[in-house]
């Protein structure tokens, strides 16, 4: 199981201006697995994501080992990493993830031309197919637009398409649903679930503070608090029996997510909560 780990983080320590923020973090993501990194704000989730992706700013000092597809990449910046150790990324802020001056189509055909060596025309067609796969209506019209003209949900789906277009072995999604409304959140989670986590699709590291979304997407969770790993288990296990103070708080929040709500509406099937089980 651990032999085919796509991502292996070992004794990761992160210092910001000399202050330790993350210490001795160890976890792995196996091929085709979906793992969630949960933690309160300020616990070092995004710094960990930055270290994994090679996007840490210069003021951040990263020690320890980050191994993607067997390549040690902790000291290599994102743009200098060898091809097989590059991972896809999806962020919360879609405005800054996309180039505001270039149309969606031109941005989306880029990976097809660069990584898969397609001609401009067939890259455009592949990009279009990709957008349709992301449930975007009127894909040809969306391709002409600039990112600022689209809704947040559409932009997030385009970011996911971009991440998937390179066919990476791993996708790191840092709070991809936080800025979206409930219905769009559902849709983005559903797409992420469909596009990741099988043997021929990328593995997923989902970083969030929303345990509800994590349950609907991932099988396993790694919970950190104050830069230290406090719990690592399957989500079913954590919900049934949370150990650490912070995980208890999370599960409590989940159980009391809707105070005063009437019992399930007549036609509501509880299974639609979709707890992913390993």
């Amino acid at each position, binding site marked *: 199981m651990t032999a085919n780990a796509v991502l292996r983080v070992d004794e990761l320590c992160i210092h910001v201006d000399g202050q330790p923020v993350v210490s001795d973090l160890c976890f792995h993501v196996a091929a085709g697995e979906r793992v969630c990194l949960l933690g309160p704000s300020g616990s070092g989730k995004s710094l960990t994501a930055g270290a994994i992706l090679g996007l840490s700013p210069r003021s951040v000092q990263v020690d320890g080992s980050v191994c993607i597809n067997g390549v040690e990449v902790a000291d290599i910046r994102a743009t200098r990493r060898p091809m097989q150790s590059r991972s896809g990324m999806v962020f919360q802020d879609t405005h800054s993830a996309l180039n505001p001056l270039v149309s969606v189509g031109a941005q989306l055909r880029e990976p097809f031309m660069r990584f898969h060596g397609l001609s401009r025309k067939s890259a455009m067609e592949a990009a279009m197919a990709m957008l349709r796969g992301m449930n975007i209506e009127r894909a040809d019209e969306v391709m002409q637009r600039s990112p600022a003209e689209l809704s947040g*949900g559409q932009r997030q789906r385009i970011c996911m398409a971009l991440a998937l277009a390179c066919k990476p072995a791993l996708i790191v999604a840092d709070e991809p649903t936080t800025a979206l*409304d409930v*219905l769009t959140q559902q849709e983005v989670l559903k797409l992420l679930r469909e596009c990741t986590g099988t043997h021929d699709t990328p593995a997923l590291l989902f970083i969030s503070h929303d345990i*509800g979304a994590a349950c609907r997407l991932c099988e396993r969770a790694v919970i950190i608090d104050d830069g230290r790993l406090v719990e690592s288990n399957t989500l079913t296990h954590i919900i049934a029996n949370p150990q650490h103070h912070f995980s208890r708080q999370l599960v409590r929040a989940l159980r009391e997510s809707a105070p005063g709500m009437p019992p399930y509406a007549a036609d509501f099937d509880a299974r*639609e909560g*979709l707890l992913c089980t390993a």
Partner: protein
Amino acid sequence: MHGLASGEAPLLCATGLYKHLHSPSLAFWRARTARTILRDINLSIQPGERIGLAGVSGAGKTTLLNLLLALKGADAGTITCQGRAVRPASVRALRWYRRQVQYIPQDPASSLDPRMSVRDLIREPLVRLNVVDNHTRRIDEALDRVGLDQTLLRARPAALSGGQAQRVAIARAVALRPRLLLADEPLSGLDLPVRARVMQLFDDMSCLDGTAFLIISHDLSVMPRLCERTLILHDGAIIEDRPTTALFETPKHDHTRALVRAAYQDHAITAMVPAPAAPSLYPVL
């Protein structure tokens, strides 16, 4: 339609609001195209009533909020507060309205002036709106209501946690003793104990002082606890306006049904995994 039954004049009444958005004539793409953001919004709020306004992003929640706060004018329709017409005007001309209707922003961390202390932040609206009363007493009272410590009075917003900043923003509104509070996502980003405290505060204010609330959220799951009545805004129109429980039990519109389902989702997950037998696992925080 709701309010007038009680015979009392509604606190706030909006009739036939329309708002169109025109892209600027100089925009080189799609010049002068118009889009209707709000269509035929009718809404009346009684004293002490708590109303939820839910809708997905792009439904027009913020535009409606801007109209109700008299920050922008409607293209058609009127808003009246206790029988008196409200329309965007100078700060001076709207003082009476600002004393009645206050706003709690969604993101307090960015809406509080970083250079001002908590005391000045809470005092500012009292001074600007010419409230004739003992300001220090009002500030102390407001702090007490939101459960903040007196020692925080000298702190600057940067030193506050998210929950504290949210409560300072609430205290700023509460200090004016408004008749209506418009709250934009008041519970998002708060942890459970602070959430419970804010909900309790809203309960007290509406029961004891008769303050009315309009609570705006994209997530229906906060509504049953907070609001007796919920409006669903979809594509610029109010598609449902019913008591919250009725809305949850028999959603009429497909869009409402989707929102109700989404609200149940998190809860459904825990229903699938039973809680451990020992209740002591969940200490009361």
